C-alpha cells in the first residue's frame, strides 16, 4: 500500500487521531492486512505513538499483522453453531486446507479464522468464505468453488 492511498484514507478523517480505529479498519479492508511500515506511517501522520497504534492493531481480533489468504474462511463458533456441530466443521475444514485458525496456507489461497456470531443462526454451523455464507454445501464442495 503506498503513501498516497494511506493519505487518502487519513484525509477522510481530517487526520484526527481519534479516528485511528476507523483508519486502520479502512486500511485493512483495502490491503487485507496491516504491514508494519504502514502502521509506522499512520503513527507519524496522526501523531499517535507507535506503541499505541500497535496496541490497537493487536488487540482487535479482526486486524491482521500478517498477510491474509486470497479467500478468508470464517467459521462461527458461537453458541448456536456450537450446538449444531461447529467443532466438527472446523476440524473438517482444517483437514481440507491444512491450516489452523489464524493461519494462511503456503500459496496464499486461504486463511482460516474462527469467530463469533454473524447473526445467521438458522443456517448454522455457519462457514463464510469471502463474506459469503456457504449454505447447504459440504465444506469440500464449498472450498472447491474458491480453488
Amino acid at each position: 500500500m503506498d503513501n498516497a492511498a494511506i493519505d487518502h484514507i487519513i484525509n477522510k478523517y481530517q487526520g484526527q487521531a481519534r479516528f485511528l480505529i476507523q483508519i486502520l479498519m479502512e486500511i485493512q479492508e483495502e490491503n487485507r492486512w496491516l504491514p508494519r511500515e504502514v502502521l509506522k506511517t499512520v503513527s507519524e501522520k496522526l501523531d499517535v505513538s507507535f506503541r499505541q497504534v500497535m496496541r490497537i492493531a493487536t488487540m482487535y481480533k479482526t486486524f491482521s499483522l500478517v498477510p491474509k489468504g486470497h479467500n478468508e474462511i470464517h467459521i462461527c463458533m458461537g453458541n448456536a453453531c456450537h450446538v449444531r456441530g461447529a467443532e466438527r466443521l472446523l476440524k473438517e475444514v482444517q483437514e481440507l486446507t491444512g491450516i489452523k485458525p489464524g493461519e494462511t496456507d503456503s500459496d496464499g489461497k486461504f486463511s482460516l479464522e474462527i469467530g463469533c456470531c454473524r447473526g445467521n443462526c438458522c443456517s448454522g454451523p455457519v462457514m463464510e468464505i469471502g463474506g459469503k455464507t456457504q449454505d447447504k454445501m459440504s465444506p469440500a464442495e464449498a472450498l472447491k468453488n474458491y480453488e
Partner: protein
Amino acid sequence: MARINSAAELEERRLGILSKRDPNKLCIAVCNGNGCSGRNEGIISVFTEELGKQSLDGKVDVRATGCHGFCEKGPFVVIYPEEICYTGVTLEDVPEIVAQTVVGNQVVDRLVYTDPATGEKAVRQSDIPYYKNQTRLLMGNNPMINPKDIDEYLALGGYAGLSKALFEMTPEQVLEEIKKANLRGRGGGGFPAGSKWETTRNAPEKVKYVIVNGHEGEPGAFMDRALFTGNPHLVLEGLIIGAYAIGSHLGFIYTRHDSPELLANIRTALKQAEEYGLLGKDIMGSGFDFEVEVHFDIGIFVSGESSALMRSIEGKAPEPTPKYIRTSVSGIWGKPSNLNNIETWANVPQIISKGSEWYSTIGTERSKGTKLISFFGNVCNTGVVEVPFGTSLKEIVYGFGGGIPNGKKLKAVHFGGAMGGSLPASMIDTPLDFDGLAKVGAQIGAGALMVLDEDTCMVDLARFFMKFLSEESCGKCVPCREGVRQMLNILTNITEGKGKEGDIELLEEISEVVGEAALCSLGRTAPAPLLGMLNYFRDEFEAHIKEKRCPAHFCKNLQ
C-alpha cells in the same frame, strides 16, 4: 429532496408520499435479512429480470426488506397489497411466482405456509400463527419498508414522534414521559432508561453525548441487527428524541463492522435524514442541532461494555475502566454520556407518539412493553419474535419455537449467553420478566434464548461458556484474566474425566472472588452460568467427578 422545516411540512411530506402511491400496485417484498439473504443471493435481480420478460417493469415494485423474523422458514417473499406470503423461496421459484401470482393472480399453493401441528394453510403473512401470536410493535414494519428509503418510513408515520417531542413538548416533558413509561434497558441490565437520561441531563458538564450500543456481541443474539438493518430510522428517531431530552448535540452509533448491509443502511439513513432536515442543524426548523457519528467494534466482545465502548469511540483500546463515577456522568472524554441499546432507543418514538399510559398497558408490573427474543439451539424453528413481557418461556419454546426436534426431550433453556443462566425444563412456565428471571438466576441479557435438549451436557456447556470468556477477557484485571482461566482448566479436566473431589467447592470459591473483584461486568458475571448450573444440575457435575460418568453421554472420555 428539500428540507422539512416544520411539523406541518412533515405531515405534508407524508401525505405527498401517500398520494403518489397507488394502493393497488403490486409490491414484491423479499426478505434480505441475514438468514434469508445467504440462501437466495441475487433473487432481487432474478425477479426484476422475470418481470422484464413479462413486460411488467415499472408496473410492479420489488423491495428488499429487513428480517421478517421467521428465519427457519425463509427465504420469505411477501406480495402486497394482498400480503400473499411464500416461504422457502428459491431462485427457481421466481418464474412461477411471477407467472402465477403477479400475472395470473393465483396463489402458488406449494409455497404457502402449512402449520405442522394442524395442517392448516395460511396465505397471508399475518395469518401465520408465528406472526399472529406476536406483538410486533418494533419489528412489524420490517416487511413493509425498504430500509434504504426514508419515504417508506415517513409513509408509515415515521418521525411523528420526533415532531411531537420537538414542537409540543419540552425536554423535561419528554424525559418525564420515558420515566413514566418505565422503559428499561434492553441491552442486558434492564436499567431504567429514564433515570439514566436524567443523570446525564443533570450532570454539570454542558457537553453531553448519546450513544447507540449496536455492538450485539452476545453469540446467538441477532435481534438488534434484524431491527437496525431492517428499520434504521426507527432507532435514529429514538436517538434524536433522547438527545433532545438530554440536551446532547452529538451522538454516536457504535456497531458491528462485519455486517455490510447493516452498515450501508445506517449510512443511507443518516444521509437521508440529514437531507430531509431531520438531522444536523436546526432540525425541522425547531432550533435543535444534533449530529451523529458512526464507530465500530472490530470483533471483540468486551467492547460492548459501556466504559470499554467509550474508550473505543475515543480511538483507544476497548478496556473497561473502573466505574467509581458512572459513564452517564463521566463517559467519552470525561463528558456525561448516555448509552442505550438499539432496542431501547427503538422503543422511544412509540412512547412519545402514543404516550406512556398506552405503553404501560403492555407487559408486566415492572417490565413494560415488548421484548425481542432470538432463539436457537435444539428447537424446531430458529428465529426472532417480539412478545410482551409476561409471555411464558413455554410459549416461546413450544409456541413459536415449535418444540424440540427429533422427538427429544427439553432439558433446559439458557438466557444471556456466557453471562446468563440456565433454567431446567421444570421451570419452563416462568414468565418473561427482568426481575422474575434474574431472581431464578437467568438474566435475560440481550434476549438470546438457547434451547437445550436431553443430549446436552451441562458441564460441557459451562466449559464452553468459560472458554468463550477466557478468550474474550481483555486481560486488564487479574481476577477475570486468571480466575476465568483457572475455572476453565478445572471444567476442562472434569469433562475429560480428570475431575477431583473438591473441584466443585473450588469452582464456587473462585466464582465468589471473580464475581466480587473483577473490574467490569464481563468478569463479575462470568461465574453466573456456572453457579446456576451448579444450582440446578449439581448431580451432573458430581457424576462426572465421582463416577467418571457423563449422564448425557456427551463427554467422549467418559461413558
